């Protein structure tokens, strides 16, 4: 029987269902033979999860076995307890396990502790009264029990540091004893005394000492001892060293310990072993928070790791860079990240790195142009993985510009954005989110600077709508953009000719299944038919960030209500007062309202267009499709009426009314909204709709306000900084790191020390001749913005080109050593924006593209070899046997077995 059960374990291990045999495993735990019983327990722990139906059959046996005289039986049962007992069954075994804590056998005590640990993980309340037991077991005579007790204590301390501060002394003395080899020899591993216990203890000390000077002071001596005693030639010694570094970087800083930690890190980084380099990079990332200056010593090593073909190492290095990003090196780092992002296929990691790019760019962006360019790149390559909010931020940034009063700079920003987007639209496949941004910007600012004709832009937009015909959100954005452009044209007094492809597109949309698209198309049609004055008030140019005030009380309707009541309508009864009784209002009355409210209603759904779209995109779009049309329109209505009271001029409104008759009928019922007398279900919903929208809208405007104010706060120190830059003193306020000025000092001296050695000197001299201001004020990335450029994007490119030529010339003649120094400069020195670009360009020029794609081919090769492997020499006969046991090729990766099985 035992053999069969083990074969079942095999069956499951190879990915096939073996649930038919579970019951036999359960039966086996009743067996008298110890070996069979334990195998049975093993099988059930492998087969079942804690919520399986069969568990109820096992609990009873466990209870019985926990009382057994044979301690091995008790141990087997405790193993099962750790895996199979869920929250409800904890009380059934808890008392017995507490008794076992005093068992004479240390193995039993150890497992009992671990069972309690498991209960704590499952539901901390069930064992909260037993915490004192853990403290008691820490003083157990047996080192194994003590070591095991560290596991639950680690969890307890993680959750609540303060109640265990008293244990610091005990932990320190235990660690001291362990380090002094007081434990039995059996716990030694490669001449290290109980390294795993040391590591656990160091982890606990790191938790206890974090930002607690008093507790930390108790630890300094012992941690220092371990630093000295650790044998750095063995892996396990290095593992303990690494844990020491983690501990040192977490507890209250001590100068001497930090020094030893820095030494250990430099040993890790200099080692040939990739494993140690990995640990070194990780440790550096931890220590850099406390002493940022240590990064400088290891620049070369870090750059090496960044260029390494090993993906794991590279990721770790990016993590490190992410931690040390400042406003001065953000451009280089983000460029690098984006390059790397393009080269990987793993969506999980791509998402992560994209969000990091966005985060860094938002936090440290040196200029808005750079921010927009960076966002473009991120969207282009990982658009579908980026949060939609990021797109909205970008749109808002473009719309609001710098937040200063400098209108020309804003419009330059926009026209350069438009230009870059028109360029990007040439790319074959773009992510949906990015297309939405492009459409919005083109619609809003495409024709603003007069550089591109309306027909050119609209042609592009039509192309977008056609090319991505299965993406309704994009199509909706495109239609609205078309509408805006036509509206601007009309408002400017020009004649509008719709392109033929635009006409066909509209016809298609008018018959679209998506009500949202249909609605937008009708709106477009309607707007085109209007005169310049009306159109201008409907879609004013560049008004996307003007606040829309919403009159929650709908006071503008008061006159109308008064009028209706005078005419005999019933007053509005709040929803709460009329629950249940749906009195059907007479239809004549309704009609009357409809007629009289035409003017109002019409404005309602034309105007709010922009805002609705920009602020509440896909979610609300979806809802328009799901919800019956009239309700979806209400929000707009509420915006509408308040926003543009000016349209109420009679001439305009009557005209609008006339033209929109057809449309009106589609949305006819929406006129219930202003009627106060009717209490049918529609009006009920209307009320709900309005209140909801009001809420969200005010929230929106509030966030916008805070955004604005924050921006201003950010900007003004930047200006100050600009002034300060002339004197060389950086005064940048940085949110993330207070390390700005610390690193600027050593970095300039870095340049001095490294550059002269190489022929790079020549290059730097050359550049200094070309652009003296750049080198004069190191550390000020904003120099560029002092000279307002005509076109920011172009200007950047212009800056790039001459310098790259110079530097590439140098590269040709220089050796590998030379190529390092520009790297360092790029990452560590605070240079001007211009110099930055030069560096980053060299970087990207030199770095060998790290695309080692080693997926398929090698595995099959290995398979071919492995069939002759030394270990399987005599295994041919056994192999046949094995296959009978159930080792069959899994369907998952068939080519792995092809070579062997033919």
């Amino acid at each position, binding site marked *: 029987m035992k053999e069969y059960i083990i074969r079942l374990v095999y069956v499951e*291990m190879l*990915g096939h269902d073996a649930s038919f045999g579970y019951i036999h495993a359960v039966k086996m735990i009743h067996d008298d033979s110890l070996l069979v019983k334990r195998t049975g327990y093993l099988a059930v722990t492998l087969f079942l999860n804690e919520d399986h139906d069969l568990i109820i059959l096992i609990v009873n046996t466990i209870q019985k076995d926990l009382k057994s005289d044979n301690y091995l039986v008790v141990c087997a049962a405790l193993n099962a307890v750790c895996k199979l007992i869920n929250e409800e069954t904890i009380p059934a075994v808890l008392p017995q396990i507490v008794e076992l804590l005093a068992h004479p056998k240390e193995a039993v005590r150890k497992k009992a502790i671990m069972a309690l640990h498991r209960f704590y993980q499952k539901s901390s309340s069930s064992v909260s009264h037993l915490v004192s037991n853990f403290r008691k077991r820490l003083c157990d005579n047996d080192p194994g029990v003590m070591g095991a007790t560290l596991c639950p204590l680690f969890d307890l301390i993680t959750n609540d540091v303060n109640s265990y501060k008293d244990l610091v002394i005990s932990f320190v003395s235990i660690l001291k004893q362990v380090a002094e080899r007081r434990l039995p020899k059996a716990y030694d591993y490669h001449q290290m005394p109980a390294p795993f216990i040391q590591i656990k203890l160091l982890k606990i000390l790191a938790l206890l000492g974090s930002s607690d000077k008093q507790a930390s002071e108790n630890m300094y001596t012992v941690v220092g001892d371990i630093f000295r005693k650790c044998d750095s030639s063995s892996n396990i010694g290095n593992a303990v060293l690494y844990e020491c570094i983690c501990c040192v970087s977490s507890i209250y800083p001590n100068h001497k310990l930090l020094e030893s930690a820095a030494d250990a890190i430099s040993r890790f980084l200099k080692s040939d072993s990739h494993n140690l380099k990995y640990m070194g990079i990780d440790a550096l990332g931890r220590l850099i928070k406390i002493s940022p200056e240590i990064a400088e010593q290891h620049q070369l090593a870090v750059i090496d790791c960044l260029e390494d073909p090993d993906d794991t190492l590279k990721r770790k290095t990016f993590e490190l860079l992410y931690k040390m990003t400042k406003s001065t090196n953000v451009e280089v780092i983000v460029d690098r990240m984006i390059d790397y992002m393009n080269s990987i296929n793993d969506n999980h990691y791509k998402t992560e790195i994209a969000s990091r790019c966005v985060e860094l760019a938002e936090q440290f962006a040196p200029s808005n142009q750079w921010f927009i360019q960076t966002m473009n790149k991120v969207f282009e390559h990982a658009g579908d993985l980026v949060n939609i909010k990021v797109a909205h931020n970008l749109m808002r940034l473009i719309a609001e510009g710098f937040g200063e009063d400098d209108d020309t700079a804003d419009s330059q920003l926009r026209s350069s954005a438009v230009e870059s987007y028109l360029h990007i639209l040439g790319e074959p496949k773009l992510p949906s989110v990015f297309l939405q941004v492009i459409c919005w910007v083109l619609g809003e600012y495409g024709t603003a600077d007069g550089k591109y004709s309306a027909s050119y832009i609209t042609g592009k937009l039509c192309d977008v709508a056609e090319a991505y015909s299965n993406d309704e959100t994009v199509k909706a954005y495109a239609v609205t953009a078309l509408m805006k452009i036509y509206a601007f044209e009309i408002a400017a007094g020009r004649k509008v000719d719709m392109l033929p492809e635009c006409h066909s597109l509209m016809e298609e949309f008018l018959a679209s299944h998506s009500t949202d698209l249909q609605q937008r198309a009708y709106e477009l049609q309607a707007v085109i038919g209007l005169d310049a004055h009306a159109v201008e008030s409907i879609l004013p140019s560049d008004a996307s960030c003007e606040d829309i005030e919403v009159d929650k009380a709908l006071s503008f309707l008061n006159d109308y209500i008064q009028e209706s009541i005078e005419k005999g309508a019933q007053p509005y009864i709040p929803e709460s007062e009329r629950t249940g009784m749906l009195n059907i209002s007479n239809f004549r009355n309704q009609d009357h309202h409809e007629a009289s409210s035409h003017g109002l209603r019409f404005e309602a759904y034309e105007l709010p267009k922009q805002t609705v779209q920009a602020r509440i995109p896909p979610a609300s779009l979806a809802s328009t499709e799901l919800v019956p049309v009239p309700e979806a329109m209400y929000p707009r209505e509420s915006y509408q009426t308040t926003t543009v009271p000016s349209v109420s001029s009679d001439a305009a409104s009557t005209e609008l009314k006339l033209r929109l008759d057809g449309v009106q009928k589609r949305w006819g019922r929406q006129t219930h909204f202003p009627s106060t007398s009717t209490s049918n279900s529609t009006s009920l919903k209307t009320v709900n709709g309005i209140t909801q929208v009001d809420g969200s809208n005010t929230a929106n405007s509030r966030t916008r306000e805070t955004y604005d104010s924050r921006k201003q706060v950010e900007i003004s120190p930047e200006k100050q900084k600009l002034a300060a830059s002339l004197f060389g003193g950086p005064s940048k306020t940085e949110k993330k790191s207070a390390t700005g000025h610390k690193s600027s000092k050593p970095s300039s001296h870095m340049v001095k020390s490294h550059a002269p050695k190489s022929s790079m000197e020549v290059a730097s001299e050359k550049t200094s001749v070309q652009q003296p201001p750049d080198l004069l004020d190191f550390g000020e990335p904003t120099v560029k913005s002092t000279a307002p450029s005509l076109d920011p994007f172009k200007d950047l490119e212009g800056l790039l080109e001459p310098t790259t030529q110079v530097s590439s010339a140098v590269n040709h003649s220089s050796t590998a050593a030379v190529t390092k120094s520009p790297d360092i400069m790029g990452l560590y020195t605070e240079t001007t924006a211009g110099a930055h670009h030069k560096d980053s360009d060299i970087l990207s020029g030199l770095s060998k593209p790290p695309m080692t794609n080693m997926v398929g081919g090698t595995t099959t090769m290995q398979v071919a070899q492995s069939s002759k492997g030394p270990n399987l020499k005599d295994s041919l006969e056994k192999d046949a046997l094995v296959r009978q046991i159930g080792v069959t090729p899994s369907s998952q990766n068939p080519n792995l077995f092809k070579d062997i099985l033919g």
Partner: protein
Amino acid sequence: MGIRFILMVNKQGQTRLAQYYEWLTLEERRALEGEIVRKCLARNEQQCSFVEHRNYKIVYRRYASLFFLVGVDNDENELAILEFIHLLVETMDRHFGNVCELDIMFHLEKAHFMLEEMVMNGSIVETSKANILSPIQLMDKAS
């Protein structure tokens, strides 16, 4: 939690031992093992022994034809896990004497018993070889 799972896989990608410390369904296990094994088999000796996979970090070590893979949390000491693998192999070596893939295949339950002694709830609880092996030897004697 620390250790999430321990796998032993041979060069052909066949699983020889699997122990999970959190519950995954059969399909999830199969998918996870396939992805991880493919990733690790593709790496060479010079590259480091750590691979990130979704939210796990995989620490792996190769002994002849057998790969030992341990999936851990993000804040685990990778180098220590690497040495833990070696400790596991040393322990098995002491028990079986010159351990090889076949020993694990034909004594699957014993390999599991050793793991049960060494790791509980995803934490390393016992590192003394004598303590790990004594219950197994006692059981052998009894039966």
